[in-house]
């Protein structure tokens, strides 16, 4: 155990860094995707609703690992058929894309539920004053929706952090992939996976503790 930490400690930390980068990038993109599709879903335009529902259902209906394979291997193959021979994605790009699309679909549902939890009268009052739909959303509805969304967003954050491990399958040098390398080199599976597991656990538990504190602060500010 000590031996593994001694020889692989810095590499494990580097891999953790990669995991966090992948996770944060994906979350940022997922927030944007989620907001866009949530707004499509709550709009009063049937066409928009349709696009929003199709995206959310489609992405949630595909396992993340399949989505990752599709983007990493399938997309370049498809581009080649279209004549773009040089099209390649790095594992980080493909991983971020797959994870953001996946997380974005769940985020869209979280944001939609948040918007719908705000009393309809808030939007109506804003519109009755002459504010546009967009202004009313930005200034009145979304700020109130965000507060109710925060626990679910944090939850999703943790799920996405765990999901990064799935992207070891496309060779992205994140934590789980590092685990594979180490156990392959040392043949010490038990120790290796225990260490990797603990690293994940420490990060996730401290994140959720921090999140709880933020959440409590927000609830106080609410009154």
């Amino acid at each position, binding site marked *: 155990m000590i031996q593994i930490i001694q020889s692989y400690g810095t590499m494990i930390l580097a891999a953790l860094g990669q995991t966090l980068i992948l996770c944060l990038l994906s979350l940022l993109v997922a927030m944007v995707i989620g907001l866009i599709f949530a707004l499509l879903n709550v709009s009063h335009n049937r066409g928009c609703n349709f696009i929003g529902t199709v995206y959310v259902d489609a992405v949630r209906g595909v396992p993340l690992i399949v989505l990752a394979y599709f983007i990493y291997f399938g997309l370049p193959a498809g581009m080649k058929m279209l004549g773009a021979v040089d099209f390649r994605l790095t594992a980080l790009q493909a991983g971020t894309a797959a994870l953001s699309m996946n997380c974005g679909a769940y985020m869209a549902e979280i944001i939609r539920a948040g918007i719908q939890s705000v*009393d309809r*009268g*808030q939007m*109506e*009052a*804003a*519109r*009755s*004053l*002459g*504010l*546009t739909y967009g*202004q009313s959303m930005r*200034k*009145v509805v979304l*700020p*109130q929706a965000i507060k109710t969304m925060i626990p679910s967003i944090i939850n999703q954050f943790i799920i996405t952090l765990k999901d990064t491990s799935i992207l070891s399958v496309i060779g992205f040098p994140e934590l789980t992939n590092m685990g594979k390398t180490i156990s392959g080199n040392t043949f010490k599976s038990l120790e290796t996976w225990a260490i990797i597991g603990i690293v994940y656990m420490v990060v996730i538990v401290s994140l959720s503790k921090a999140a709880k504190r933020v959440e409590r602060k927000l609830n106080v500010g609410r*009154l």
Partner: protein
Amino acid sequence: MVKENAKIMVHVENLKKDFDKLEVLKDISIDIKEGEVVVLLGPSGSGKSTFLRCINRLEEATSGKIIVDGMDITDKHTDINKAREDIGMVFQHFNLFNNKNVIDNIMLAPVELKKMTKEEAHDKAVKLLERVGLADKAEAYPSQLSGGQKQRVAIARALAMNPGLILFDEPTSALDPEMVGEVLDVMKELAGAGMTMIVVTHEIGFAREVADRIVFVDGGYIVEQGTPDEVINHPKEKRTIDFLNKVL
């Protein structure tokens, strides 16, 4: 308070409004003059709210024509947001913006719609708060106010846009009895100052005292209308009489 040669502020012609198969408003026509206070009476479900909400297009009329201050509300090409700047609305459940304090509730629309600079909007909001008797509540959040105070802020918020017309949808129905008076007093003051108002209310005393005209709606039509004396003291239609017997 209607002036001698006041212009027509609201013109409604053959207004019809269905919700799918439910015909709520069947054929409503009415002209309301500038400065006039019209109180709308009618049984629950008779479409009073729907009528008000058609006037600022929170609901889209199925057919018919609505003109407010020269703007054709029923015309698809009309900029409805521009039109709404001129039509205030006060809701039964106040609908103050919960994420904003009192002064920001009042300032939001004038600033966001570039009607005023921040400073102008702030000055105006302070004056309006004085007018509704809440000068000391500028920094309070809606959750810290009583129902009566919330509704007075909501009225101030509507006034901040300098509307030519204000729609009131049962502004005192959600209030504890002891707070009804403070809201009605603000509305009386507004009426006295010449504001054009359409008020849905069950406060017959208010109607009697403040209304220039009372309109009784039922079954999708205007059943009877006239001065408070005509409609409340000497109703002609059976449905009006039945209704008044229930609420008086």
